């Protein structure tokens, strides 16, 4: 056990993945000599050599496209895309090939790979470095989409992703890369894909969130409870596709109220799907319409306005109060 930040947990998982399976290799821009722009791959080139930790040309379609071939021919690529805003040049490869290779070859080939993508705002980054467009991937059948909200899950989910027979988009919330430390086992372990976590039990209202927002919601929930407010059950979705309906529905059926909080813009953010499914399957238990607290439907702004773009504390509180007082 070592106290690790989320980015250190990622680094530890990558090290274990490389050490544990010689088929694993890392691909990306600046991941070798430089150790990654966030230091996720620090030290790994020295440990595993340049055939397993590969600095590629600046070429996302090249990275994801060759990863398809690498994966289909017996390797397990873990690709780093530097920021979510830079995955778009490789979008065709993801949508047309990575996601569909198994179907398109009726199982003869598959594309087991992990695409690591730092995402989200609130790190005062330059333009286009703060997108939260997980919808593009969730809406693409064939992809698994995962995001951790803490160091322990980061390592466990990443190792599970590397072991998955299917391609996994692994979203890393930059805002909490170094926000706090947690005990993280030194040995490899997995946190299963497809399973949400109830990170805080409660009885009046279910809040569903993921990534960096989980921490915000947890604080707000505690503060509200501390001051006589409602008892919030907080569900960390962890896997965004497929959705863990069992956990989500069970919680909402218990509390009768649901609020979804995410950094993505509201229209067709994952909150829409969650709201639609909850309304369909839990309708008889709902005491109030499902409420979404999301970013406004405008592009992520330059950083001086970003705190007003994503859900603020006030908006999250208001969302919870809205379903409580409906």
């Amino acid at each position: 056990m070592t106290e690790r930040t989320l980015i250190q947990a990622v680094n530890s998982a990558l090290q274990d993945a490389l050490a544990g399976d010689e088929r694993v290799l890392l691909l990306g821009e600046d991941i070798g000599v430089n150790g990654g722009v966030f230091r996720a791959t620090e030290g790994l080139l020295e440990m595993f050599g340049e055939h397993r930790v590969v600095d590629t040309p600046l070429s996302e379609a090249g990275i994801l496209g060759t990863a398809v071939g690498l994966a289909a021919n017996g390797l397990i690529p873990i690709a780093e895309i530097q920021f979510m805003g830079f995955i778009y040049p490789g979008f065709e490869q993801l949508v047309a090939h990575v996601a569909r290779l198994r179907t398109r070859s009726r199982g003869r080939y598959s594309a087991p790979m992990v695409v690591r993508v730092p995402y989200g705002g609130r790190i005062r980054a330059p333009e286009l470095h703060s997108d939260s467009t997980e919808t593009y991937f969730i809406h693409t059948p064939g992809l698994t989409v995962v995001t951790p909200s803490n160091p322990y899950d980061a390592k466990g989910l990443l190792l599970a992703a590397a072991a998955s027979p299917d391609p996994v988009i692994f979203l890393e919330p930059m805002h909490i890369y170094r926000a706090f430390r947690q005990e993280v086992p030194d040995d490899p372990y997995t946190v299963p894909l497809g399973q949400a976590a109830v990170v805080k039990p409660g009885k009046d209202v279910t809040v569903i969130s993921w990534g960096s927002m989980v921490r915000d919601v947890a604080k707000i929930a505690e503060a509200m409870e501390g001051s006589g407010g409602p008892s919030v059950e907080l569900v960390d979705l962890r896997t965004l596709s497929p959705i863990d309906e069992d956990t989500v529905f069970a919680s909402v059926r218990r509390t009768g109220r649901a609020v979804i909080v995410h950094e993505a813009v509201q229209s067709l953010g994952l909150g829409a799907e969650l709201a639609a499914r909850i309304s369909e399957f839990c309708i008889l238990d709902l005491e109030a319409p499902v409420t979404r607290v999301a970013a406004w439907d405008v592009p992520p702004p330059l950083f001086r306005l970003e705190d007003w773009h994503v859900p603020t504390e006030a908006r999250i509180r208001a969302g919870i109060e809205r379903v409580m007082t409906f």
Partner: protein
Amino acid sequence: MADTAMLRKPSDVTDDVLLNLYTEMVRLRVFDRRCVRLQRAGRIGTYPPLEGQEACQVASTLALRRQDFVVPTYRDYGAMMVHGVPMEHILMYWNGRAEGCEIPDDVNVFPIAVPIATQLPHAAGLAWAAKLRGIDQVALGFFGDGASSEGDFHEALNFAGVFQIPVIFFCENNQYAISVPFRRQTATQTIAEKAAAYGVRGVRVNGQDALEVYRAVRSAVEQAAAGGGPTLIEALTYRYGAHTTSDDPSKYRDPSEADAWRERDPIVQLRQSLVSWGLWDDEAETELLERLESEVTAAVARMEALGPPNPDHLFDCVYAELSPHLERQRRALRAELKDWEGTDQ
């Protein structure tokens, strides 16, 4: 190729290979013509004929070793069959049947790439994996002249150059991307010269000359396998027919153009040579055509003997395992079909 040259029998290619080149080219042509007829009769869907490009597909693929990868576009089902994909799978594919996507486990052929140029990074990746794993294996990625305009072409060639990947990029330059002529695709005279921009070897061959294609690919395979890195081969060729059966080439080119190309038909040329070398005669030809016609007929019969499409195929290979959500959707579809089978609609 001058007539006198045709008379000299090559010493670097065995009789078996010469005959193989010929019979596989004829096989593709027989298959292709049948498919065009099947499409017209509504027995398969939209189909992209390859007639005219047989030397490119056959000679390149025969120059590979069994372990090497063929990475095709939609027009390279000919190469796929040469490398071992059963003919009926190709028929099923163009007939919209999921079963057509099956590739036997011991056949190193990648699925058909429909989005242009996207297969080239795959070819690079497949070959790169072989290099990293220390396997003696190359990959050959087919592409068209139009594909050279896409970013994926660039990124694949660049990776191949930087990582010295044992991959061959084989361009069937048939001079049209649907209706757009090659001169509108690029301001260069050739595709081959683009290789230099990636530190990659570039070669241009006569795509109507099976032997020239064969030698170029064989040499590229040898170099790749020996650690000599990638090669881009451009084969100048022509599709005699339409881009696909939905296309009308008279909109954009003069039929005399195709006629001129037919004068240099790869099959006719090789047959003349084989005859002059005493390897082929009319009897062999008749026998071959009969055999191929019945091979195709049998494959068509197998395609048409398939039962109704199986809706489970929608779900069964999307992920290694079905999520509960997809399981629910599959159950719903099954239920719907049961109802539907119950009615006489």
